[in-house]
């Protein structure tokens, strides 16, 4: 839970990113960097530009202007694949999981291990199952068996499978798009624990959320997005929940609302 260890060079750094869709300015100068082993929380209310920013970072959108640096060197992401090759994996809200299929088959989907010589090259179910069980256990989920269907898992556990999959297949930076937004209290804490584990293994995490409390629970640094701009980045301990909340909402009205609600938001 300390400040980012090791190197001063971020794995990925985005400087002054702007993105225009025709006359709409979705991003008007966003600067964010992620160091190894760091959880960088990106906070913002609906419409602040979070989704556009994720898509720029994961290579789906090309920025209108601004710089992307990978390991300190300028990089251009032509598409999602080139971002993945640079080690930037995105776990979207719909997770890319198939509920009817087993955890193992989902975990390895598209990258199944095989053994034997063609035409007798078979899916190595034992190895796949073993690694899946092991990776899931590292994330704190004890599967009954590798053949358990994803449909039997809770939303938080599915999130964890998706995270474990991205990490196992070489993600250095993991972008999590509101992983806790649809989850209950206990499942949320499971996902936050997963984020903590991933971070400790040296992966940089970009945690997008609009829930300040979730962000405070695991974040090392906090960047607030408002109306397409970064309002600044603060280290852990430099800000408190209320300050972040105010920055996200853009000030006064939230303060008065909060007063009338007795600090429950």
């Amino acid at each position, binding site marked *: 839970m300390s400040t980012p260890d090791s190197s001063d060079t971020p794995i990925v750094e985005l400087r002054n990113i702007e993105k225009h869709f025709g006359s709409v300015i979705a991003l008007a100068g966003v600067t964010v960097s992620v160091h190894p082993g760091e959880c960088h929380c990106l906070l913002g209310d609906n419409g602040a530009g979070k989704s556009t920013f994720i898509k720029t970072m994961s290579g789906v959108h090309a920025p209108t202007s601004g710089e992307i640096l990978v390991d300190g060197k300028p990089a251009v992401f032509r598409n999602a694949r080139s971002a993945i090759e640079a080690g930037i994996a995105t776990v*979207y809200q*719909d*997770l*890319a*999981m*198939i*509920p*009817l*299929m087993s955890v193992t*088959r989902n975990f*390895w*989907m*598209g*990258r*199944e291990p*095989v053994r034997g010589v063609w035409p007798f*090259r*078979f*899916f190595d*179910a034992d190895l796949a199952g073993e690694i899946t069980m092991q990776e899931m256990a590292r994330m704190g989920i*004890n599967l*009954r*068996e590798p053949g358990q*269907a994803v*449909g*039997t898992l809770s939303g938080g556990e599915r999130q964890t499978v998706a995270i474990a999959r991205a990490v196992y297949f070489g993600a250095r930076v993991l972008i999590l798009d509101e992983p806790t937004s649809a989850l209950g209290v206990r499942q949320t804490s499971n996902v936050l624990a997963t984020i903590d584990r991933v971070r400790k293994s040296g992966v940089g995490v970009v945690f997008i959320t609009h829930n300040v409390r979730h962000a405070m629970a695991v974040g090392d640094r906090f960047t607030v997005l408002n109306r397409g701009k970064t309002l600044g980045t603060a280290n852990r301990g430099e800000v408190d929940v209320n300050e972040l909340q105010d920055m996200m909402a853009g000030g006064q009205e939230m303060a008065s609302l909060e007063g009338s609600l007795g600090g429950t938001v």
Partner: protein
Amino acid sequence: MSDSVTQSDERVREMSTLRRWLIRPELGSICGTILVFAFFLAVANDSGMFSGKGVMNWTLVSAQFAIIAVGACLLMIAGEFDLSVGSMIGFSGVVIALMSVTWGFPMWIAILTAFAVALVVGWLNGYLVIKTGLPSFIVTLAFLYILRGLTIFLSISATNKTIIGGVRDHAEGDWLANLFGGKILKGLFTWMGENGWIETFSRGNRAGQPVIEGIPMLVVWAIVLIVFSHVLLTKTRFGNWIFAAGGDAQAARYTGVPVNRVKILMFMFTAFCATVFATCQVMEFGSAAADRGLLKEFEAIISVVIGGALLTGGYGSVVGAALGALIFGVVQQGLFFANVESSLFRVFLGGILLLAVILNTYIRRMITGER
């Protein structure tokens, strides 16, 4: 937290054996097979249904169903339908007969041409479904009519008939034709007949020969296709892609599964199976007819659904589909042996289809936990 996890784990583990059996796609068809056999053993045992000849009778019918059900099964798991299977059977048969009997090509060229044409049609089906994004139901419905119309047109315009006979003479001694029309293990059956282990003819010019002279290639094809497809589906990387393509095509694409290729290949495989069926049938009857294969697409789909596959894709089993075909064949022939009015077969078919779909939906809910 960890305590409660292990506790709930143990509680689940207690019932997991039962549950694991319940969520196997084959369960329904295994129960169905047992019930059907029990029923006919009780009702029609003395009718000759379970004599050597009777067994061969319903085995052949079941094998026919199985050949097309296997193709339809993999395609359905990949998330698509093919309603043109029946028309494909008629079309391939007529192509073989026209090529060999009418136009005088060697039989093996005729058969290979039929397979080539079928694969192209299968590819076209798949390509159109993928490119247009239309439901495969509509695209293959179009081909149901296109192929049937072409079949009748070809056969009428080339021979003025809708039935083309004389195939058997042309198939005589052809290496490839024997792969579809012959029988294997004849020596074994003769030997078993000589030893009195199986029934032999007691009179006539075939006296002393076994009543069943060998295993028809139709049955061999059915078994080969079942084993091949089962291994492909459950034991290979490609099999995982079939499940993934049908389970959620978008999610599969996200993770790098070549969904389009998988689906098109499955359309081609279905057409291949239909042509195997057609070739065996042409060799058996010695003729091709433009109306062959009518309604076979539905029989294939029913077998697959009885076998536990979901109509929505992503879930199913080849073994289940094969058992579905067996139930199908045994009931159809069994009602004949039991002297039941054969029209009742359709009533049974509709009933069991409904039952299977309800059971499958329930099982799906159990797996995915949706309510």
